[in-house]
């Protein structure tokens, strides 16, 4: 009898036999390789032109052919390298984590826990867009370089995978675990997607209701801004103002198709939905308008619903509801009113003056780099924010933007650490605001323009309120609108803010009236900036640590500054020159409040019934 010889065990295979490893799309090496080729081409053309010309001269007429051949070899090598790296790059999805294996020389296997998922981005660079591919980026809060990037997948595959990952991260289960996974590969997921339905069924429970989980105060009903589009099912907001029937058809384009296909597969977490609704204070909308759409949901046993077990084999993309869009004219207007255009005007003036004084051509020519910088600045601003739109879905907030490279971000509920509404000086006349957020996953990996952390590039006042409402559906104030309005434009103790005392004008003669802080049941609002107005909002449960600071002058005036530490990002909340006693009390209370709020915070898996 022969004992089968055990196959040599490679370290990267250990304990992963059950995983269904998948490859990226085969076109990936070409898409990745061309960048190397282009980089080489640029370096060669800019740096080595003279050398090539000289050597071509030496070699005679065939020199060019030689250069071309050399370049061809490099290009082939680059693509070959990309191909080998594609061969070894594989990923697998389990119920708990995403695994990514890559590296030719240095093997790397990365495992990202889904319950630590901070955001999922689908990014499409221009070239990938032409061939219908996209990159899926999973952001986990591990600092710089911690993201898991799956590039490139077929567009539909990426979307299906995103829906699946979000559902798993939300705490919904896939029956059969890894085994089902195998049958449920990219193509199956694709074909099956329309017929399945997943977390999306609970459309009414958009991030608003589930946003921060704990009981909402009576203020919740007053918060929904007037500009709320009719299609938004405002569960935490003002269901009274939105007819339930209107919410359903306009709001959930995907729902009809998904349910028609496989009603039996539907297991809506109706029960948990209702439970959730009751905690959020406002009457939530598993409304009459929607229930008939989900015939399966109504017949599904409540126990199944509560667990959120989806009996289908894939998760359909969650339905989305558009909340706001950025019109192009406003984006252009905002760029005209930016610091860049001030430079542009100076630049034109400089040229006119130089020509007027008969400056030599070389002097004017020296301004060319600056012109390039300006053009690229404007281009980046337009490219990053163009076609910006935000939507709600049960998975969280959906942001889409980009002109050449499009990006579709999903921020699950409770992942926003802090919000900043701020107004550059020149936007004042138009009353435009820029809304930015801290998300732990984007820490360190922020791209140059920082477009990932923008919640609204150019918002009107109402849209700014709406954007804030998206991430913080329950502000915890009795009159949230007034509280935010006072934070945006108010001074002194408008809107119940605790302002910096008058004596602080000695250390800040211009802005002292604007320094103010408001504590609500759910968040801390920090107001500042006389000309560059700013309002920072930090949910209590997102406070990392707190610091009280006092310089010698502040000490003489008996004032102190309070810093609220948030994760890395554009928002660094800080309030200057509060009365020392007030600041100390605030520090103490805030530490207590943060501790309290954390206990009640929404779980990491935001759809798992507790």
């Amino acid at each position, binding site marked *: 009898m022969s004992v089968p010889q055990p196959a040599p065990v490679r370290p990267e295979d250990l304990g992963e036999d059950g995983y269904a490893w998948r490859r990226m799309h085969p076109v990936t090496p070409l898409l990745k390789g061309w960048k190397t080729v282009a980089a080489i081409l640029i370096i060669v053309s800019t740096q080595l032109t003279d050398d090539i010309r000289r050597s071509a001269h030496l070699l005679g007429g065939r020199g060019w052919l030689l250069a071309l051949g050399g370049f061809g070899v490099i290009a082939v090598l680059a693509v070959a390298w990309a191909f080998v790296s594609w061969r070894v790059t594989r990923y697998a999805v389990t119920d708990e984590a995403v695994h990514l294996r890559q590296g030719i020389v240095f093997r790397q296997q990365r495992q990202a826990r889904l319950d630590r998922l901070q955001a999922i981005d689908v990014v499409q660079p221009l070239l990938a867009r032409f061939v219908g591919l996209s990159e899926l980026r999973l952001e986990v809060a591990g600092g710089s370089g911690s993201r898991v990037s799956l590039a490139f997948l077929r567009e539909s595959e990426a979307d299906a995978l995103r829906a699946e990952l979000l559902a798993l991260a939300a705490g919904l289960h896939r029956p059969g675990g890894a085994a089902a996974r195998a049958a449920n590969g990219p193509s199956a997921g694709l074909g099956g997607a329309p017929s399945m339905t997943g977390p999306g069924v609970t459309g009414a429970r958009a991030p608003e209701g589930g946003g921060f989980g704990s009981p909402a105060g009576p203020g919740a009903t007053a918060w929904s801004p007037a500009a709320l589009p009719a299609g938004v099912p405002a569960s935490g907001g003002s269901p009274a103002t939105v007819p339930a029937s209107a919410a359903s058809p306009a709001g959930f384009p995907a729902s009809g198709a998904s349910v028609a296909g496989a009603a039996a597969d539907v297991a809506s977490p109706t029960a948990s939905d209702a439970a959730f609704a009751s905690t959020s204070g406002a009457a939530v909308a598993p409304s009459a308008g929607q229930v008939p759409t989900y015939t399966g949901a109504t017949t599904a046993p409540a126990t199944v619903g509560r667990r959120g077990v989806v009996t289908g084999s894939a998760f359909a993309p969650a339905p989305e509801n558009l909340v706001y869009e950025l019109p192009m004219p406003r984006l252009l207007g905002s760029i005209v009113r930016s610091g860049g255009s001030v430079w542009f005007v100076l630049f034109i003036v400089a040229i006119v003056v130089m020509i007027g004084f008969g400056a030599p051509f070389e002097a004017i020519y020296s301004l060319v780099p600056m012109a390039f910088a300006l053009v690229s600045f404007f281009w980046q601003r337009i490219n990053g924010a163009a076609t910006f739109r935000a939507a709600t879905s049960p998975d969280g907030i959906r942001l889409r933007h980009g002109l050449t490279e499009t990006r579709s971000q999903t921020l699950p509920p409770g992942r926003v650490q802090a919000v900043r509404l701020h107004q550059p000086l020149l936007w004042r006349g138009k009353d435009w605001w820029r809304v930015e957020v801290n998300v732990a996953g984007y820490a360190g990996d922020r791209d140059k323009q920082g477009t990932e952390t923008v919640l609204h590039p150019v918002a009107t006042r109402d849209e700014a309120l709406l954007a804030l409402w998206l991430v913080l559906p329950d502000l915890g104030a009795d009159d949230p609108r007034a509280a935010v309005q006072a934070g945006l434009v108010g001074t002194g103790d408008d809107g119940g803010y605790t302002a910096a005392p008058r004596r602080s004008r000695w250390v800040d003669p211009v802005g002292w009236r604007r320094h103010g802080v408001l504590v609500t049941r759910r968040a801390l609002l920090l107001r500042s900036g006389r000309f560059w107005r700013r309002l920072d909002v930090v949910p209590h449960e997102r406070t990392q*640590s707190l*610091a009280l*600071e006092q310089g010698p002058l502040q000490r003489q005036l008996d004032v102190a500054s309070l810093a609220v530490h948030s994760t890395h990002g554009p928002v660094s909340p800080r309030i200057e020159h509060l009365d020392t006693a007030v600041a100390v009390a605030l520090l103490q209370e805030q530490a207590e409040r943060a501790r309290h709020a954390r206990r009640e915070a929404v779980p990491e898996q935001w759809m798992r019934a507790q």
Partner: protein
Amino acid sequence: MAPADPFTLDLTWTQVSPRLAAARLTVAAFWLVPLLVGAVLPPLLSGIAWLWVLPAVVVLLMVWLLWLVPRQVGALRYAERDDDLLIRRGIMFRSLVVVPYGRMQFVDVKAGPIDRAMGIARVQLHTASTSSDAWIAGLPPAEAARLRERLASRGEARLAGL
């Protein structure tokens, strides 16, 4: 007597070891003494009287540090509460940091060669925020280990996500 310092929050604060001052002064001496030698040489060699200003400045700096560093070290204190750790430091520019145990991501204990010779260590607390600047230097190794253990166990008990 001056009114009670509001930064104390009516807590009992633990001071760090005065050996931290010795350690810091030793580090300062490493570059100040060669600097002093370098500053003494020009007037000594050239005999120009006003050049003695240079070593005088260095000596003043040394005296100032001798006065300042022990005071700074004296101002570095910490207090443990049930749910958070508080760190206080600075005399001119004072700060008070509150770090909840549940927010702690990891804790570093570090000791360089001079620290080890002096028998002190430095404990640094890391939260998910890069701006939480929470460290305590000058802890005796046993106390550093105790604190680390306590922070780790407390952090686990009060663990929260991000």
